[in-house]
């Protein structure tokens, strides 16, 4: 197959770009820990409120000093509906849905995670700035989808 010289240069440039892109993404993900939300635990979607940690939705301080927020997404809101979190602390959001697919997306941060019924999702985030953060559902969940939002109050310790 004949390749024009310029085309070889062009494709070489493309392949190098590809390698650079993937290295940046890969190093950032696996060496620096910037991976998107994920989780491998499942849950009975009809028994969410009987299953830990969702039997007590809200903020918990774990034994190692870090924080976990157990969050339930439901049509058309979140449980707990009000949340106050400490600034400057590492917080793990643990999320599931008790009905259809939703999302838990904190505007102005990279926290943008799917709530899939039957699955438990995790994402760790540290709020650097105190203030009020808007949380919205950005996955269509029904007629009240656009009303599904809440606020997080982040306060200095």
């Amino acid at each position, binding site marked *: 197959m004949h390749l024009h010289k310029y085309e070889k240069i*062009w494709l070489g440039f493309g392949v190098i770009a590809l390698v650079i892109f993937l290295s940046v993404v890969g190093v950032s993900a696996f060496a620096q820990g910037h991976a*998107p939300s994920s989780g491998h635990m499942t849950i009975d979607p009809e028994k969410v409120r009987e299953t830990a940690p969702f039997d007590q939705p809200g903020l918990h301080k774990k034994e190692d000093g870090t924080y976990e927020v157990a969050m339930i997404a439901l049509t058309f809101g979140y449980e707990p509906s009000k949340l106050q979190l400490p600034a400057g602390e590492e917080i793990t959001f643990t999320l599931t849905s008790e009905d*259809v697919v939703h*999302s838990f997306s904190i505007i102005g941060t990279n926290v943008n995670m799917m709530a899939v019924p039957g*699955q438990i999702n995790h994402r760790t985030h540290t709020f650097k700035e105190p203030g009020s953060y808007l949380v*919205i559902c950005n996955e269509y969940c029904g007629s009240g989808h656009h009303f599904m939002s809440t606020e997080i109050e982040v306060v200095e310790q």
Partner: protein
Amino acid sequence: MRTGEIAIKDRKVALFNLGFAYSAFLIGTLCGLLQVFIRNDALKLPEWLDYYQILTAHGLLLAIVFTTFFIFAFFQAGMSRTLGAFGPKVRLWNWIGFAVTALGTLLVVVMVVAGQASVLYTFYAPLQAHGLFYVGLALFVIGTWIQGFSLVGHYAVWRRHHKGELSPLFAFMAVATIILWVIACLGVVATVLFQFIPWAFGWTNGINVELSRSLFWYFGHPLVYFWLLPAYMAWYVIVPKIIGGKVFSDSLARLSFVLFILFSIPVGFHHQLTEPGISSFWKFLQTVLTFMVIIPSLITAFSMFATFEIRGRELGGRGLFGWIRKLPWRDVRFTSIFIAMAFFIPGGAGGIINASFQMNEVIHNTLWVVGHFHITVGTPVAMTFFGLTFWLIPNLTGRRFTKSLQKLAFLQIATWSIGMLLMSTAQHLLGLLGAPRRTAYTGYAHDDALAWFDGLLTNHVTMAVGGSILFLSAALLIFIVIQLWWLAPKADEETYEAFPIAESDSSMTPRFLENWKIWIGIAFLLIALAYTIPLSEIIQHAPPGSGRFQTW
């Protein structure tokens, strides 16, 4: 028969597909217009109609129905043009396929209008539409398979009669696209037949949501290549002829299509990067496979500009960029498709961002994504189809694309470009600020959300202005289509609109490129590599199934 003319009996099935495509286009774009008004609180729908019904219709009618029916019209006309008239069996099965696809579509539309299926075109479980909605989807896919297989049959007959020869480039590419489509549909057929239909009719009680999502996206990503490859066919095979040139490299054209079959399917997880149930390793592996499509995309870009430059220089263009001015810009059949290609440069780059693993969190399910597919399927693909329409309908109806209609066509593509530029730029920027997609209303009582109305471009109102211009453009296109179909003057020998097919020198093309067994084999190997383990994990570690929810 004149050169570039298609057997009269074959024209009809292509015209029926086109008619269906443009009916869907008219209703779908009208839905789009309503959406931008509702989102800005400028319009209140009557009680019996709901925003999410309209949104479902908009997505299905434009992204699925318009594209698919148009693509089959293009394939039927082009296969008849390049391989010769259909035999009676091929023609009959094309008609049967068309009828089944149309029946499926109508069933889906009835369910959406009846308010039984406001589940959007992704129909994510456990939102449960009426069982007949899923039956309609299944019929739609089966109908496309029947049309696809009958075209492959036509191709097989040709190859039997031309042993040892490479097929014409158009037919090769059409077959590659059909192969891609059939393999892609296996995922959606599996989830619709084995998960959704039994569950929606109440024969089973629970559905494995994560499995259905994964099977959907196994289909959902190659779906976009099913839209794109026919546009690429126009770029590779049609455009060079329109500007008076030749295909730059037959072998590279074929190679790029083969690579698209390999690398557009085992990549669906990049639509599911932020969800649980799939480990980071498999998400990353599919990210790597996704990035491989950069190579055939760059081959295509190079080939296009090489063809343009060679032709521009033949016409007397000098210097580094002098050839650009020599291209036939006054020919709307060329200019429309050139603009379509230009839109694909930011469109493709945006796609790389979307698939970039953790970067996906920034834009996932925001308006950015909506902006992204309006400058991929909504312009590069759709405007290429417009550019084809301008000569394909006259070719099939024997009418003339008159000077005054050409002027209107320029106005149409100009308004489409401006409208899309405004709307998609606003959507991209709003998405970066976090504005969500698929919402009926944009007012959240929070300072961050109020900022979504502040900027010049980062503004929901700009998006609405763009959307309104787009609808005007769509209406103009429908006017042109009606003219070309029924009203424009009949063409004579000299003014007849031929079906342009560029010359492609395949004497140096390696024969293995048309050995489908190799490519289908490698495609399934890659699919098995990327999907076997994560899918079996999703099945083995399945939570109790989800019930049926109708939340609209």
